Every structure is written in C-alpha cells, then in structure tokens.
C-alpha cells in the first residue's frame, strides 16, 4: 500500500503547494469575466446563427436556413466578391506601395525619416469615419478636390461620380484606403528594414548585385516574418472593411449603386442591426470568420514553405 504513496510525483523544490480555496478565489475574476464576456457570447453567437431573430428576445429556430439563404443570396455573393477584390488590392497595390515608401524613407536621414514617418502615418490617427466623411467631400463631382485634381492632370474626372456610379465606387474606396493605410503598413516595413543585416547587403553590393537583386534576394527574405505578418493582418483587415464604405456611401447604408461598395461586414451590419435579424447577422459573422481562418492558414503555410526554401 505504501507503494502508491511513493508513486506520487515529487514537487520541485522551492515551489510551495497551496491548499484550500485561495488559488481559485484569485483566478475567479478572470474566469468569471472570460465566461461572461467571451464564452457566453461565443456560444450564443453559434446558437444565434440557427435562429431568425427580431432583436434579442423574439426568435424562431430555422436550422441551417440562414446559411442556405446566404449562399443563395446574390447580394451576399456580391459582398463576398467586393470584399475579396478589396483584399487583393490591399495585398497587391497597398502593401507594395507601403514597401516602396519604406525603402525610400529608409535611405533618407533620421530627421527626414522621422518627419515623413509622421506625415504618412498621420491619416491613421484621425480614424476611418472621419476619413470617410472627408473623402465624401473630396469626391464631390465638379467641386471636389479629387475631381479637380484628375481634371487638371488627366483632363478627365471633373464630373466623375465616384460615389454614385457603380464602376467608380470600388476605386473610390481603394483610393481612400490607400491614403489611410499605406503609411500605417509602411511603419512596419520601415521597422523591419532597420533590422536587416547591413553587412549582407554590403556583401551583395560588392559581389555586383543590382539594387533590385539586393532587395529581392537579401532585404526581402530578411524581413519575411514582418511581411507575412503584415499580409495576414491586411487580409484580415480587408475582410473586416466596414467604416469606410459606410461613411462614404451613407445614404445607401454602405451598399452603393448596384451594391458596388457592399462588403461582408456592411452586409452583416445591415441585416443584424438595421433589419434586426441578429441570427442572419451571426451566420454572416461565422462565414467571415471561417474565410479569414482559411486564408490565414493558407498564408501561414505558404510562409513556412517560403521559409524552408
């Protein structure tokens, strides 16, 4: 019988073992708050997706009907398409622009770097809603700064209806988001560039590599962790795009002419909070979460493959 006692794991020396309720008491605030503000809403959100609701109290169980409705709804498909286009633009236009700005700034002096870092980052300080309101004025046909600028440079665009013509709505959102986010991502790239080993770049230069070759074969691989992080965050952010189209296209609840500005979260917001159907909104939320999860997994896997290569 005493053998059993001898099998008990030996506690490492120096770590006292506490008995009683005290540890649980100290843990309880965290457990209670997590349960109240994370676990319960999380479970509730899952349940909600299977109900049609009218606000928080009135509901009817509809099984998978919300998901069936979503995947057969052309408006939802349009929202998915628009959001994906925006995410692609973020990755293939916004991030390269941020990188170019970061490279330019990195080659400048410290004072210049500090000044332009603030200039490019500052749009991010004012927030998306204010930027949306500001650009809705700048995009005014005939009188707006953007229209006048295009007319001056390209002899086109004085009467361009950026916010009411469907083919121009997504470009308008992209232009606004570039102004807002390019500087923000640039900060990440600039910070990463400053950690790149200068001796490697110098060695490549001595070996006769061109600036492009140095960037592609030395600089970029050295900052790939940051690049992967920024790409993932940009894609996630793109799939959560909401405030900009909502403020730019406020008269149509963020939809825009022919749904050209509609994003997944705008669709969610409209159905959940404007129509009061929290169930459908929850279903959209889960679809968005799954999309983001899958895309992030793919990106992480691709990042690992690149790292192994």
């Amino acid at each position, binding site marked *: 019988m005493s053998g059993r006692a001898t099998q008990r794991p030996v506690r490492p020396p120096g770590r006292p073992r*506490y008995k009683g309720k*005290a*540890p649980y008491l*100290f843990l309880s605030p965290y457990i209670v708050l997590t349960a109240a503000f994370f676990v319960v809403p999380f479970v509730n959100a899952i349940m909600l997706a299977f109900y*049609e*609701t*009218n*606000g*928080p*109290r*009135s*509901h*009817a*169980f*509809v*099984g998978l*009907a919300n998901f069936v*409705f979503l995947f057969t*709804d*052309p*408006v939802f498909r349009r929202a998915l398409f628009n959001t994906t286009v925006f995410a692609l633009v973020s990755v293939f236009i916004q991030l390269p622009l941020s990188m170019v700005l970061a490279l330019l700034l990195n080659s400048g002096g410290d004072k210049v770097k500090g000044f332009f870092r603030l200039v490019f980052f500052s749009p991010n300080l004012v927030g998306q809603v204010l930027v949306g309101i500001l650009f809705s*004025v700048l995009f*005014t*046909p*005939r*009188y*707006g700064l953007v229209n006048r600028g295009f007319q001056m440079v390209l002899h086109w665009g*004085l*009467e361009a*209806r950026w916010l*009411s*013509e*469907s*083919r121009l709505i997504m470009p308008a959102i992209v232009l606004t988001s570039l102004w807002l986010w390019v500087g923000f991502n640039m900060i990440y790239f600039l910070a990463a560039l400053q950690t790149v080993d200068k001796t490697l770049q110098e060695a490549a230069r001595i070996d006769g590599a061109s600036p492009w070759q140095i960037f592609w074969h030395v600089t970029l691989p050295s900052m790939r962790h940051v690049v992967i992080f920024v790409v993932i965050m940009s894609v996630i952010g793109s799939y959560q795009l909401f405030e900009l189209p909502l403020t730019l296209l406020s*008269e*149509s*609840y963020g*939809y825009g*002419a*022919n*749904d050209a500005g509609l994003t997944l979260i705008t669709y969610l917001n*409209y159905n959940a*909070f*404007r*129509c*009061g*159907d929290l169930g*459908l909104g929850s279903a959209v939320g889960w679809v968005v979460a799954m999309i983001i999860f899958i895309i992030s997994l793919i990106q992480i896997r691709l990042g690992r493959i690149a790292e192994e290569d």
Partner: protein
Amino acid sequence: MRFVSNFPYGRAPFWLLVIAVVSVGLRVATARRHEARPDLVVVTHTEAQFDAYRKAIPRFERDHGVKVQLQFANWASLQARLQNAILAGTEVPDLSEVFAGSLGFFTRGPAEDFGLLDLTDRMHADGLDKRLVESRLSLWSTRGRVYALPHDVHPVMLAYRRDLVEALGIDVSKLDTWDKFVEVGRQVSRDLNGDGIIDRYMLDMRYDGNWGLQVLMFQRGGQVFDQQGEVAFATEDNAQLIRWYIEQTRGPHKIGYECGWGQPVVRAMTDGLVLFQWAPDWRSWIFADEAPALAGKMALMPLPAWTPGGRRTSTWGGTGLMIMKQTRHPDLAWELAKYLYFDTTQLGERFLATNILPALKDAWNLPEFATPFPYYSNQRVGQMYAELAPEAPPVYSSPVDDAGRLALDRAYNRSAEYYSEKGEAGLLEKIRAELAEAAESVRRLARREKILAKGTL
C-alpha cells in the same frame, strides 16, 4: 504586518485586494443617487424639434402638474437601441420621434412584440383622423392600425433661381407638365463656354435614383409597398418612369445633374449650374439657411404634373411620434403627444422657424402660414405648401422597407448601366426584368419575416 507577510502569494496580492476594496467602497459611497424618473420621457432626434419642445414643455408641466424630461439623441443609434430595448424589455422613453420609413423596423415579427401603443382608437375618439391629412397616416400604419402621430406632410415643390429663370425668358406658370419642363430643360441645359462640359442644367437629379426616383414615383401614384405591405414597385408605370429618369440623367439631351448635399448644392445654386431644386417644405428652409446670398433671387413652384391637370406635388420624408407600450402613463403620454403636435398656439411660431407644414389641417389657417417669405421673393410659402398638402400621396411601409428601397435602386442602377453600355435598344425589357428580379428578392426576405411572425420554420 505578520498577517500581510503571511497572506497567500505574498504582499502584492494583499495590497491589490486592499486597493480594489477601497476603490469599490469609494465609488459606492460617492455615487450620486439616481434622480427619480420623471413622469414622462420624450426623445427627439432633430434640433429644430428639440428647441421647439424645450420651449413648449414647461407649460404642459404646469398645466398637468407633472415632470417631463426631453432628450436629444442621434437618429441611427436611437433607432437600433429603441428597438432592442423594446424587445429586451429594458427601460425605454415614453415617447419617441422617428423618421419616415422606420415604422417597419419597429413592427417586425408578431404584433405582440411591437412595443408601440396602438393609437388608432384614441385618434378616432378624439376625432383626429378627420383633422389630419389622411394620406400621412399611411406612413405610420401597419396591419390596419396606426402606431405614431404624423408630425408633418412634407409636400414637394421646386425651388428655382427666379432671377436666372426670368433672364432666360422661362415662364414657370407654363411648366405645368413634365413634358413641357423637359422641353424647356433641353433648351437651357448646355455647354456655355465650348469646353465640352455642360455648364447649366435644368434640374438637380440624383444620379443613382434613390430619393430622386422615389419622389417622382410617389407623384405618379406608385409605391414601394402597397397598403398590405406587399412589394408594389414592379409595375409597367415604374418601368416607364425609370426609362424617363435614365434619359434625363444620362441621355444625350439630359437635363438633370446631381448636386449632392450641403455646400455643393449651395455652390451649384449660386453658380447657376442647376436652375431648379427639389424643395419639400423642410428643404425650403435649409436653402434659406445655407445659401442666404440668394435671398430674393429664389422662388417656389409646384411640381409639373405627369398628365395635364394631374397631381402637382409629391412627398419626401416625415417624422412621427410613437408612444411606447411600456409607458406607465399612457393617457398622459397621449396628452403630451397631442400637445406637442397639434396645439395650434405653438404651430404658427414653429412653422416660421422651420417652414415645416404640420399634418393638422386646422393650423394652416393661422396667420403665420400666410406670411410672405422674403427669401422666396415674398411668396406666401406656407399657403403654397398648404394648398398642395391634401394632394400629397400616401407612402406605405413594410417590415422590409429598407430592403425594398435598396432593391428598387438596384433595378434602377442596373438598367441605367445597361443604357450607358447599349443605349435605348432593349432598355424597357431590361428595366422590366430588373424590376421583377428586385421584387422577388424582397419577397424572399418577406418570406423570412413570415417565419418570424409564425414563430417557427
């Protein structure tokens, strides 16, 4: 101090605990006691109404010996919070003003969830239904019952640059049909300096349809939803209207240009870029407020009719006052609602401050409504709107109201894009198909609504 040293996990958790207990104690001790809830709480979302009610409420408080609290709230948050509070059974104001088109939002699902007091019988008992503009009750009715009092009528006229229009030799009294209006519009909408850009347009017309299209649709007797709440916009008449609207905003002889809102409209009016603007009563005041330099240069005229002798107005917008089912004083709330909306001693002054025509017909005979308005070349603006008000068309609502309006816009914009790419050929067929598809998309949503009303799949 031995106790502190022996406290489980050491001194730090002990002091954290002390700080937590002391701060909670201080918070509780210094917390202000909740003031007793007033007898009635009323919420509005427009500044003009807030100012008017703030002046009026003290008299009601004195006369009834009660306390009324007036609150001002942002419309978007008010709508969502109010509906959720009603459904969740949490505290709501006794009375709340809401915008037109929102009744559907508050009347989703089964009738017992509505949270609004049914005002139909009270209105009949007080004879109000006969004293109000009948068509305005449509905005605030669903399933045959009235759930809010109408604040206004919002008949629509056209505001125009009288000086420029006269200089062009246009006699507005002859512009009594849209055909004549368009004919003149085609003559005056032109490029004046030869740079290929039109410098003068006849009318402000929203490019993507929206309210611009709806105002005209209502004038022709069309509806987004019918009285039973069924989709009603997929009609031949609306197809013809959409074709007309597309021609006026995108055709080779277009007369319409979208001015937008706020300062761009002021610039467009001041520069003479657009001669005529849509002017529901509330907007006639906004023009006077935002473009004071045009005082005396502006004038108003009724809308041209679609057929000779036809309706010369439409309607755009509206505000209503709802009483919540939760109120502890429904009779007092009803008295306050009537006092705020239909007390004729206030309505004259309120009209002078807003140009908004009340839904109460008795009020239109007050002297303030016959006062010449210098901004509009001394026209008697109140009288002009009052003469048109009985003709203001009804606008019905549905629990899927917004979806209906979005779907109509979608049909319009797809048709307009078709026109931009392929021109007139096949346009009418395209419009009909788009309207039918849009109507079906709304019916799909309405079917979901019925599931909710039944309480099961």
